């Protein structure tokens, strides 16, 4: 690591549908996919623009916003919990289901662990008290059980379905 000094300048990322977005090396570092690109010997920090054909400008800026906020809030120790919680809630409020899934895709493609963890938790929170039908629709999963097979599972685990309203 010591032999390859970090490029001082910003990294240029080009989303599929917008202008180049400049990010600091510290932010780029958290995107594993970008990081391995930068570490490639043929990469020239000053001139290379990294095209991201699978990521939209909206998704990229959301991910950068998240990383920026969370890397700054780590530095301050006190009273961070409340404001971080608020930021996270606002962050998710702007995302409808499809956008949330697309963002999860983008975070997965860029391999940003912190954002991936956060979004997986957000989806888990969203689906956890929903009906099986909702979950199938949300993930686009096809029910491959026969009526009897599904009934059988519900009967075996009847206690887990107590108080659950089907829609």
């Amino acid at each position, binding site marked *: 690591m010591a032999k390859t000094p970090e490029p001082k300048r910003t990294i240029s990322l080009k989303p599929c549908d917008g202008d180049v977005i400049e990010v600091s090396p510290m932010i780029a570092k958290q995107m594993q*996919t970008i990081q391995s690109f930068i570490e490639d010997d043929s990469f020239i920090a000053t001139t290379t623009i990294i095209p991201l054909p699978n990521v939209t400008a909206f998704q990229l800026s959301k991910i950068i916003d998240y990383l920026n906020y969370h890397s700054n809030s780590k530095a301050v120790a006190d009273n961070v919990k409340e404001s971080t919680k608020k930021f996270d809630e606002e962050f998710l409020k702007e995302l409808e289901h499809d956008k949330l899934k697309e963002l999860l895709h983008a975070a997965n493609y860029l391999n940003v662990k912190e954002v991936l963890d956060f979004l*997986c938790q957000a989806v*888990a929170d969203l689906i956890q008290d929903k009906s*099986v039908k909702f979950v199938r629709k949300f993930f686009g*999963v*096809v029910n491959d059980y026969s009526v009897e097979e599904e009934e059988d*599972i519900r009967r075996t685990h009847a206690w*887990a379905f107590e108080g659950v309203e089907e829609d």
Partner: protein
Amino acid sequence: MSQISHGHNNEPATIPDGDSLHAPSPFLPFELITEILYRVPVKFLIQFKCVCKSWKTLISNPEFAKKHFSTFHHHHHLLLSINDALNNLIVKLYSFPSIFETPPPISTQVSYPLNTQSCFAFMVGSCDGMLCFAGSLNTALLWNPTIRVFKRLPPLEKYTIFGFGFDQCSDSYKVVAILCSLSSSDGGSAYVTEVKIHNLGTDSWRRIQEYPFGIPSGLSAKFVSGTLNWLASTHKLSSYAIVSLDLGKESCQELLQPDYGEVNVLSFSLGVLKNCLSIIVHYEEGFSDVWLMNDYGKKESWTKFLCLPFLGFPHVLPYGKVIYIYDDKEVLLEFNSELAIYNFRNETFNFPEVPDFYGWPEPQIYVESLISPCS
């Protein structure tokens, strides 16, 4: 694979393609769905077995259960096992934030699986979402109350003290049985013990080396850092040794205790606080100290964590077990056989409404899991 041009460089570099991103409604790959499901509470995962066959296979896989346990953001619960009006054994779970923050505490309850067989049972320990109970006729039972799966272990022939924990070396849950019997040889009589370990994999008991310290006192062992810990009486009166059984090495050793100083100790009890072995020491003078062994097995790592104040009754023991530390400012403890919260920052007491607490049997800290005693 998509190609990314390198500006002036002619050599193309590639970044793996994110498939199906441009589908009209975004579908998440199965690995991402799995990552999401690691974060869903157990009860809902049981419901989600109905989603489709591949989800059922995934959720039923023991490897998934392990990964779920290590990923899921756990809430700790206080678990009490109590007898209801019909003398059925039930376990009641109280969520910790609700005990400390929002009275009255929220609880859920589950019936003990062998209630219809009218057998006496008490709790031995809790580990990774599974509970170990000792039942009548020297039997032990492992039970995960969240997924409602239980397993009876093969019965033993003598009065037995059990312990339950996880051994990382063999990646398995182990129940330890100390079989006790009175032997009357050489003109006198003395208790003799035999130690056996049950392995879930083989479902059989296997004898290991002796328990070297008489009979363990207290019916449940404390599981910390891959070891089971009991207090055991030594030859000297009113003096106790901490005996540690390493579940990996399957051997016992004595743990050195902290230097209590110039005080008259009335009694001790062991506990687990902040994942550390703890010992609460009650003094004749009417106060108690709580010590934590921060680095398991190292005598010098004992630190006095807390001093519980003298409240005006010498020779009376107001304090019992210390059960839980919350938010680095409060402890849940037994006080005059009730539950009490002592705030050690501002030195105040308050009493949560937990009507089922009798101080007996041992309250446990519980976290839910998908881990099955039958897998």
